[in-house]
Each structure stands twice: as structure tokens, then as C-alpha cells.
């Protein structure tokens, strides 16, 4: 039995898959921000899954990213080579917003007085110019100990080529500050470019103590309630890792939450024969969009947390996502000039929307949907939670409708409209802004609030086709069940391709593989992917060229060279076969493949039968329409229905407007043609 648990800002979702029977189970419970681990335990209990039979529990969590964004990490010190104290704050000195006089640079996580320079110097060749001077290091440690730092990052120049000084310094720091969490730059990112490496290492150290504590307490609590299987943690690269690796490299789980839904969207697209889809996931706190082309999520070698212009570079492989602060729990409010705003502040799970009866007093998007009749107070989460419709209406009237002199329904409609236009921007940013016409893609809606709003977004962007997959409210967890184990390693290995010592290169790959062996939990069916980052001599940017282990063993420079020229030509439409080529980095991905999961087929049942009718506001806030309500689980393959309609299921509701036509695929997805779109 495989179990995946995804903690969002509002809900904790669980999906379980029994490989023997091919059956799924699901559960959802409110996230308990102060007690995340307790939330997981509660969710497991609720699912009724027998803990003793779980072979692996896969976990995705926003702990890492939230710690950074909310700047709630550890008090962190930084130890660097003499002369480079300000490298971290100077960064690259650039202003991506060229015409903005009020541009903002990144705000360092370590102040200057906690950044200590010590005497040591390595050269780019790996030779020692100046040995590590212990006295200056010990003095630095004393100062950081006096300041009671909880974490220390160490980043020396050229440690990617020769990490000896960093290693030695690490030992001394660990002895001098026994309680501190220590990150050495060459262990986090063994690639040249000191600013990016420092930033990535500092982020790792800054979030390390909190994430480490979280993982430890999760393991302990699971053991306590009888879990005996393996715990794995979702990474930003779409693969999973062990808790031990997560504790050392929490920076790799930055986008741990969103990637599950993207993996699942790609899979859904593939199942339906749609290679180009946009994944749209709206949870309680945020909405996320991601573009999938040719069946593959878009990957980036790293990203800037907080945006390129003023964010923190974190150079670990990540699936590309655009996120906006609009989720079911996003709060509606009136600003100082009387304009209605929605988010980015969220009521989250605690206190939650007013209707959750958790003490929330601020009206949210969920409250607005309830007032519009799109949610049923008696039929939420399969009736596990009874919503307070009256309180939601009162909240909207008091906080929004009265000050703006409108009816409750009109205020609720306005809240939903604003949220929709905001989320449309996120979808636009992954498509239109990159030159892709959203009309060429299908929109895959997930998250508890995704299917509620997806048709309005599709209409706004003229997207003709929407897919509501199976288990949309547990989609991220579903994607995690399908995630392989994956570790990415990088090493700067700077040499001319022609003159490179391939025996040393092979040894380096073996070293990296050995490193991966200690990180790797799965012992069988692992796959190694080796890439060399190559460029023409004189260039800066590289192309990652896949190479085989046998090519490296044989030192087959010609084949590697040809592959590079060909890839270069494919990518840039020209190449230079006579120019010398150099190697810059070696990349190794070690992948522990998981067996493919087959979803059960739905039995055919053409007739769709509504189980009731409800009065629902669908765009017209004066007159509600009488709207049939279907149960998702009662819809068979081939069933057709058209809007206006609601399709209710555990954890979400799909809203269809007049003219939208929905049919059920053999594999269970709702395929919806949007009215009015081409």
C-alpha cells in the first residue's frame, strides 16, 4: 500500500493506493498550522488505512518555502573567504526592471555583522594559494556563538573544485557550535558562481533547523502510531527523497507541494492523448499554474524565490510554476480608497473561512461561493463538515456588501469575479506571456477550489477545453503516488573537451554516483542519466548534452562533440563544427523508477441523473437559476450533461455554466467544452 500526504495551507490531503487490488482511498482534513504533524496523523486515522500495511508514505510539504517567504528561519551566520563578505548582498549588481527607479534587490537572510571572513584561498585550478587559517576561523566561530546563531553556512571561493577547506572548516564549526545546523556550499551545490552558490547554501542553512525538526517529529509520530514503512519526501524536481536527505538538503523540497499536481496533470493529459495542457490548481491559500508541453512539465535549473528581480536564487532543479495569492481561504477586504480586493491574505485553516465555524470573521472566497449557492452547507467534504451559511452571509454583508451598498449576492459575485481575473493572470503568465496561445491547450483543474472556478477562467481566456480529472481535490497527493525517487547532482568540471582527462571524468561520475548511493533508498531498478554541460570556448552558457556511461569510459570525444553540435543546431538553428568545445559541468540524475499505476476503468453508463435541484447564482446576482446537481461517483463512462449544472464529489464541486457541455471519459475524467470558445 502506497500513501501520499500533501499538506496545503488549508487542507491536508491523503491518497492511498493498494497495488494488490488497484483501489484508491482518500481523506482530507483541516491543516493544523501549529501542529502540522498532528494533522497528518489525524488524516491517516480518518482514511481508515491500516498503518501496518503501508509500504511507503510520500509526503509533500510547504514547510520549506513558507519558512523562507515568511522569513521565519533560523538566526544564521555565514563564513566566507576573506574579501568576499559582501558577495552575498552585492549579488550580480543587476536591475532586471531596467526603467524602475525604485527597484528592489534581494534582502539577505544573513546580516553583514553575522558574516565573517576568514583567511584561506583556493585557486580556480584547485591549488591552495593560502592555507586555511584556524585562528581566524575560531575567532569567527566565537563571534557567531556569542551571537547565538542557530545555523551556519560556509561558502569559500572555488570550493566546487576543491572542497578541502570547506570540509575542514565544517568540522571546526561543528565542534565550536555543537547545536548549530551547518551547511557547506560544496555539499549543496557543487557548481561555480559564488553568489548563486552562497545564496542557495544560506537558504538551506536558514530553513534547515525548522525543516529538520519537522521531519524528525513526523518520523517519530508515525512510528508511535504503528507506521513501519518508508517515509519519503517530495522534491521540487518531481522526485522523492529520504527524510535523511531532506534534513540535509531542505532546499531541494522548496516546491514540494505544487509539483504533485503537475505530475498528475501531465499524466492525465497523456492518458487522454493531450500532450499540451495547463495545470491549474486552486487550493485554500493560493492558485498555481504550470505549462506542460509534449507531455513533459517545464523544468528549470533553478529559480529565484520571490521573483528574478528581487528574489533569492536557489539553484536546484525545479518544475516551473506561477503562483498567485488566491485560494478558497483568501480574504476579501476593502482598501483605503474603497476598492474591493481579494487576497493575498488567507484565513488558511485556522481560523479558516467564516462558514467553517472555526472562529473566522473575515469573508473569504469560500464564503462567497456558499452565498452564491454553489456549495451546499450540508454536503461539504461528503457531509463531514457542516458549513454555516448564515454566518457567511452575515460576514459578507457586514464587511463588504453594506460598505459598498450592494446586495449580499452581488458582493459575493464581485469577490468571485476579482479572484477569477487574478487567477487568469497566473494562467496567462505561463502561456500568453511566453508566447503560447492558451487556446491551444486544455486546462486541467484541480485543488478543492479549482473545479469551482475553472470554467470562468477558461471563458476569460477563451480556452475551449477543460478537464476535471479523477480525485481533483486530492490531485497533488495522487501525483505524488506516481513520483519516482530522484536525485540530481552537479559538479563543475572545467576542461577542454579535446584535452579532458576522461579517466578523471569517469572517476568523478563514480564519486557522484557513490554520493547518490547514500542518498538513494530504492535499490532496484535505478536508472542513471548523465549529462555534460558543454559550450564553445569563449561562451558562457552551456547546453546539457546526454551522454552514455560507455561513451565516457571509452573517452569518445567525437561522439560527444557531434551530439553537442547537433543539439546546438536544434536549439539555436546554427552551430560551429570547427570551434573548440569545453566541458563545464557534469550532471548526474539517479532515478529509482516506480511501477506505473493503472487507474481503474469506469463502467459505461450513458444516462446522467441529477439527484436534486438547487437555486444557484451563476453570473446573475439578482436571479438565481434552478440548477441540477449530479454526484460524480454516479456518472458512468460516456455520460453527458450540460450546464447550468453542479457536479458534486468528495472535496470539490464542478460548476458548469449555461451552454457548457460535459462528457465523461472511459477513464473517468470530465471533459468539458466551454461555451462560446472556438
Amino acid at each position, binding site marked *: 500500500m502506497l500513501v501520499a500526504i500533501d499538506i496545503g495551507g488549508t487542507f491536508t490531503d491523503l491518497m492511498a493506493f493498494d497495488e494488490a487490488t488497484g483501489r484508491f482511498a482518500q481523506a482530507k482534513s483541516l491543516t493544523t498550522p501549529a501542529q502540522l504533524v498532528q494533522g497528518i496523523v489525524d488524516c491517516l486515522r480518518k482514511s481508515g488505512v491500516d498503518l501496518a500495511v503501508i509500504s511507503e508514505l510520500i509526503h509533500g510539504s510547504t514547510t520549506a518555502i513558507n519558512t523562507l517567504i515568511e522569513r521565519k528561519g533560523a538566526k544564521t551566520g555565514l563564513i566566507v573567504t576573506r574579501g*568576499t563578505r559582501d558577495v552575498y548582498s552585492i549579488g550580480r*549588481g*543587476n536591475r532586471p*526592471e*531596467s526603467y*524602475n527607479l525604485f527597484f528592489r534587490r534581494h534582502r539577505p537572510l544573513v546580516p553583514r555583522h553575522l558574516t565573517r571572513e576568514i583567511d584561506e584561498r583556493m585557486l580556480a585550478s584547485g591549488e591552495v594559494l593560502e592555507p586555511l587559517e584556524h585562528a581566524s576561523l575560531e575567532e569567527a566561530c566565537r563571534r557567531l556563538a556569542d551571537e547565538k546563531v542557530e545555523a551556519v553556512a560556509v561558502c569559500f571561493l572555488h570550493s566546487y573544485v576543491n572542497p578541502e577547506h570547506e570540509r575542514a572548516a565544517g568540522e571546526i564549526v561543528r565542534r565550536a557550535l555543537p547545536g548549530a545546523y551547518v551547511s557547506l556550499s560544496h555539499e549543496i551545490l557543487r557548481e561555480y558562481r559564488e553568489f548563486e552558490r552562497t545564496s542557495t547554501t544560506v537558504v538551506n542553512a536558514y530553513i534547515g533547523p525548522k525543516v529538520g525538526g519537522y521531519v524528525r517529529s513526523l518520523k517519530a509520530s508515525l512510528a508511535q502510531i504503528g507506521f513501519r514503512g518508508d517515509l519519503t519526501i517530495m522534491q521540487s524536481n518531481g522526485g522523492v527523497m529520504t527524510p535523511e536527505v531532506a534534513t540535509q538538503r531542505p532546499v531541494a523540497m522548496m516546491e514540494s507541494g505544487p509539483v504533485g499536481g503537475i505530475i498528475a496533470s501531465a499524466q492525465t493529459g497523456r492518458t487522454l492523448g493531450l500532450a499540451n495542457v495547463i495545470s491549474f490548481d486552486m487550493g485554500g491559500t493560493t492558485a498555481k499554474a504550470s505549462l506542460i508541453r509534449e507531455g513533459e512539465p517545464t523544468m528549470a535549473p533553478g529559480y529565484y524565490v520571490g521573483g528574478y528581480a528581487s528574489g533569492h536564487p536557489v539553484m536546484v532543479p525545479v518544475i516551473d510554476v506561477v503562483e498567485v495569492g488566491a485560494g478558497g481561504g483568501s480574504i476579501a477586504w476593502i482598501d483605503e480608497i474603497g476598492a474591493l480586493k481579494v487576497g493575498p491574505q488567507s484565513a488558511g485553516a485556522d481560523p479558516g473561512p467564516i462558514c467553517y465555524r472555526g472562529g473566522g470573521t473575515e469573508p473569504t472566497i469560500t464564503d462567497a461561493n456558499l452565498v452564491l449557492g454553489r456549495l451546499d452547507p450540508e454536503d461539504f467534504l461528503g457531509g463531514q463538515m457542516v458549513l454555516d451559511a448564515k454566518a457567511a452571509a452575515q460576514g459578507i454583508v457586514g464587511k463588504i456588501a453594506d460598505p459598498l451598498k450592494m446586495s449580499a449576492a452581488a458582493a459575493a459575485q464581485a469577490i468571485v469575479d476579482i479572484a477569477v481575473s487574478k487567477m487568469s493572470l497566473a494562467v496567462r503568465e505561463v502561456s500568453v506571456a511566453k*508566447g503560447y496561445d492558451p487556446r491551444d491547450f486544455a486546462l486541467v483543474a484541480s485543488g478543492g477550489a479549482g473545479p469551482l472556478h475553472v470554467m470562468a477562467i477558461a471563458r476569460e481566456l477563451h480556452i475551449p477545453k477543460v478537464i476535471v480529472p479523477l480525485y481533483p481535490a486530492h490531485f497533488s497527493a495522487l501525483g505524488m503516488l506516481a513520483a519516482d525517487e530522484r536525485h540530481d547532482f552537479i559538479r563543475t568540471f572545467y576542461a577542454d573537451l579535446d584535452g579532458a582527462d576522461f579517466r578523471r571524468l569517469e572517476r568523478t561520475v563514480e564519486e557522484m554516483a557513490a554520493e547518490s548511493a547514500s542518498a538513494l533508498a530504492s535499490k532496484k531498478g535505478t536508472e542513471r542519466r548523465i549529462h555534460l554541460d558543454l559550450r564553445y570556448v569563449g561562451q558562457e552558457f552551456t547546453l546539457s548534452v546526454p551522454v552514455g556511461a560507455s561513451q565516457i569510459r571509452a573517452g569518445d570525444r567525437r561522439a560527444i562533440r557531434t551530439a553537442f553540435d547537433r543539439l546546438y543546431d536544434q536549439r539555436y538553428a546554427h552551430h560551429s563544427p570547427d570551434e573548440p568545445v569545453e566541458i563545464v559541468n557534469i550532471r548526474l540524475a539517479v532515478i529509482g523508477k516506480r511501477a506505473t499505476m493503472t487507474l481503474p476503468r469506469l463502467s459505461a453508463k450513458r444516462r446522467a441523473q441529477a439527484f436534486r435541484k438547487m437555486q444557484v447564482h451563476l453570473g446573475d446576482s439578482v436571479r438565481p437559476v434552478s440548477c441540477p446537481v449530479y454526484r460524480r461517483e454516479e456518472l458512468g463512462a460516456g455520460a453527458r450533461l450540460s450546464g447550468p449544472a453542479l457536479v458534486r464529489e468528495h472535496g470539490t464541486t464542478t460548476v458548469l455554466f449555461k451552454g457548457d457541455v460535459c462528457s465523461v471519459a472511459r477513464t473517468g475524467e470530465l471533459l468539458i467544452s466551454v461555451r462560446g470558445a472556438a
Partner: protein
Amino acid sequence: MRTKLDPVTLEVIRNALPAIANEMAADLQRTSYNMMIYEVRDFCTALVNLDGELISQNVGGVSHFVADLGVIITDAVKRYGRKGFKPGDVLITNHQAVAGQHLNNVVIYVPYFFKGELLAFSMVRAHWIDVGGTSTGFGAGPEVPDPWQEGLQLDQLKIHDGGRLDETLCRVIRDNIRFPESSLGDMNSQIASCKLGIRRLDELFRKYGGGTILKAIARIFDETETQCRNFVAKLTDGVYEAESFFDDDGVTPDERVRIHAAGARVAYKAITAPLAPVNEGSFRALEVIIPEGNIMMARYPAPMAGWSIFVPTVVETIISSLAQAMPDRIPAAHHGLLGGSVVFFGVHPQSRRRFVVQSIEGGGWGGRPFEDGESATVSVCQGDVRNGSIEGIEMKCPVLVKARALRRDSAGAGKFRGGLGIDMEVRNFVDGKWNFERANRRGCPAWGLWGGGPGESGGYYLRAPGESEYRMMHGSHKPVSANSEVVVRTGGGGGWGEPLERDPERVRWDVLEEFVSKDAARDLYGVALREDLSVDQAATRDLRRKLGRAA
């Protein structure tokens, strides 16, 4: 084919056009052979119509390359005629009489035809590492009297004619520049980038139809113009002035060069719509008057090697002139120099390969009406221009970067102080040549606003082996022996508002962080700190009263 201009189509086209220019830029950067392109981003990519109007341009990169490619197209269309271009043509130019920039900035452009009709050009301007002449890197120094000594002049020539490469022209270029492998590699990248632009533009035209695209472009120009006009309309009508000066013209010492602000596009853009993409509409409502023969409008054949040195100061002066009109939107002055450039070159004694160290270091920006200025950031004329990483520099060149550090007390004091300038210290392991820029603004450093103090200005300093003191340096192409040490110093930003009004707690933090010395805290800010760096409130009150009276 969709023909009507519905709002979604308009929106898609509005975003797709800049996306094309940005994709051209990304490819150019990724395939270029010279740091001025891949790190310093001294280039621009654009789509321009036959009237020389800017359809779209890349984001980031050098700000003063804004919408200035049009003159090349109007000139080319005049010379060749509309019928004078055919598919497969690639043109090259760097001629100063038309382009108005130094010869290193080489422009490549390619015509775009839709259904046989010439409609637009895709263009790439990029800084070549060398174009011949007396010096490499940034062109010749100010001492050179004319363009012929500055390098090879290429005047609107077809390097590909209908798809056929002009071998003769190629050889002329190859034989007259110092790093042909690098520059011709860059030329190929420029051509590929232009062709990519044409391909993407064609996809767009095929999808939506020529009529729709042209209608959309006209609409986008109009809307952009309106947006800018709406902003300007909010200002009180008036004549706003500001003045600044350079220490000298680089030839005659101590003869001040006055800059009296009239108008310029960078400043206008920064003030009206800083975050929106650039197109022709961005400047329709702006008229700029610069008499020919002025330093900002040189008369050919004036030498142009140092053409851009003045630009950030001009932009800043214009921005400052509006401080009265919009006090809450104008920061104090920044370091104002394009440079902070690190340029050291030579031949590696072991590998016999030629090397060039190049980096652009940032300086301090001015204090803002609501917060301190940023430190160590490139000038207003440079956008996404990145310094060279120390590790990348040392990997390729025989130098040691000993420090890249913020300089205490380099910022102008103020209620919101300026940002700090930096000291970059470089030791060269081998003999070579340095380019030292002139410190032009020692007499007119980054000024403060509303009572704020000026930032400290920058300069170049050299200590030869065996010497104990650093000497201030200027001049390009200066031979420097192995194991010399050079400090490239950039200026700090001006302060905004009275320093005595600065929150003493912020001053204390600045002292703890070593941005401000204890002395400066006392003398400039009137803040008395105890041994443990806590604020002595009573002493601070006295000090501030005394300093306030003295002022």
C-alpha cells in the same frame, strides 16, 4: 485563421511581440562568445517596422538602447528603397553618422516578408569585443581624434545577399579586428537571433493574419501613448530645470562640461511607465530637442568611443529636474557612471591564449522618499547587467580577485541615506594592460535631495609591485606589470532628506553593520552611540540640536 481583433487576440499579440524580442535576446545571450553580451547584456533585440517604428524590444539590458534602432531602418529604406531588400538578406552596420554610437556596437538586421510584402525588420545590436582601431574592449580612449582610428566602419552593408554570404566582406572584417573568432561567432549569433525573430513573427502573422496583426500593433501604440499621457497630465504644467557637470571633457583638464537637461527617453520611460514593455507609443508624446554639435548630438566625424559616458548623468539630471513637480517620486542621485568597469587584457604566458577580464561593478543609488537607496547596483542606463562572478573570472583569466566589498561611509547621508559604492581589488598574475576610466564626477558627485548629502565618488587606483601606496589612474591600454594590484572604486548614492531626521535606531544598525562609521554617525547624523553601540538618547538630542543650529 482568426481575423477580428477581439480582446483576447489583442492581449495575446500584445504579449507575444515582446516575447519574440525576449526570446531573441535569450538566444543571443546563450550563444554569444563575449562577456559584454552574455553577462553585461550590452545589446538589444527588436522588431521595427518600415517607418522605423519600434514594434517591440527586449526587457533588461542596456536602458539607453531604448527605441533607437529606428533611425537605422529609415536610413536603410531610404538608401536601398523598399524594393531593395529580398528574403535571405542580412545587413550589418556600425556607422556613427547613422547609428550615433561607438563602433563596437554592431547592428545586424534581417527583413521580414509576409506574402511577398516587406513589413518589418528584426534587429540585434551587440557590443563586439573588438572592431580594430587603437584599442580593444570599449573602443579607443578620449585622446583619439577621429573615427578612422577608432576602428572598422561598416555602413549599411549586405553581408548576406539573398541568402549568399559575401565572402569578401567577411574577410575584410576578419582581417581588421583583433579577436575574429569571438566577434564572428557573435555575428553568427546575431544573425541566428534575427532569423529566430523572423520565424516567430511569421508564426504570429500566419496564425492571426496580416490585417489583424497590423491593426493590433497600431492599437498597442495608441494605448501605450495614452497611458503615458495620462501620467504626465497629472503633473503641474511648468518649466523644470536641473544642472550637473563633468570635471572635464577628457582632453582638456579642468574644463567643466555642463549638462543642462532638456529631455531624454530613458528618464521619460522611468517616470511614465517603468514596468510596461517598450514600443513606439512609449515616446510619441515626448519631444526631445538637442542641437547638433552638442555633446549629446555629435556631428560626424566626431570620435564616439566615449559616447555613452555622459548618458546616465544626463538621465539623472532630467529626473532630478522633476523633483519639484513630483517630490514623492524622485530619488536622490546615484553613482551615475556607466563604468565601474574592470578591463584587463593580455596574452596568457602558458597557454599563449589571449584573455580579457571584463566586469561591470555597480555603485550606490540615491536615497528614496521612503527608504534607503540600494547599494552596489549598475547605473540607470543598465538594466539586467550582471557583474562577472569572481570564480568565472579566475577560471578563465590569470588574475586574483582579492575583494569585492561595500565601502563604509561611501553613501550620502540623509533621512534615507544613499546606497554604498564598492571596492573591487584585483591582482594580475601576468603582465597585461588595464583600461582605467577617468573619474569624471569628482567635482559633481551623486547629489542629495531635500537636505541629503552627496555620495563619495569613485576612481581607479594602482599599486605596482614594490610600491606601498596606491596611485589614482586614468587612461586606457596602460601596461601594468605582473603582481600589480588595482582597486576599481565605484561611487555611493546621494542622501534624501535631512540626516538629522534619520531614526537613530537606523543609524545604530548602520554602525553595527559597518555601513556607517561611528564618527560619521556622530558628525553627520548627530547620533551618539555608547561602547556597546546602544543609542545615548540624551547625548543624541544635544548633538542634533547643536548640529541643527550650526546648519
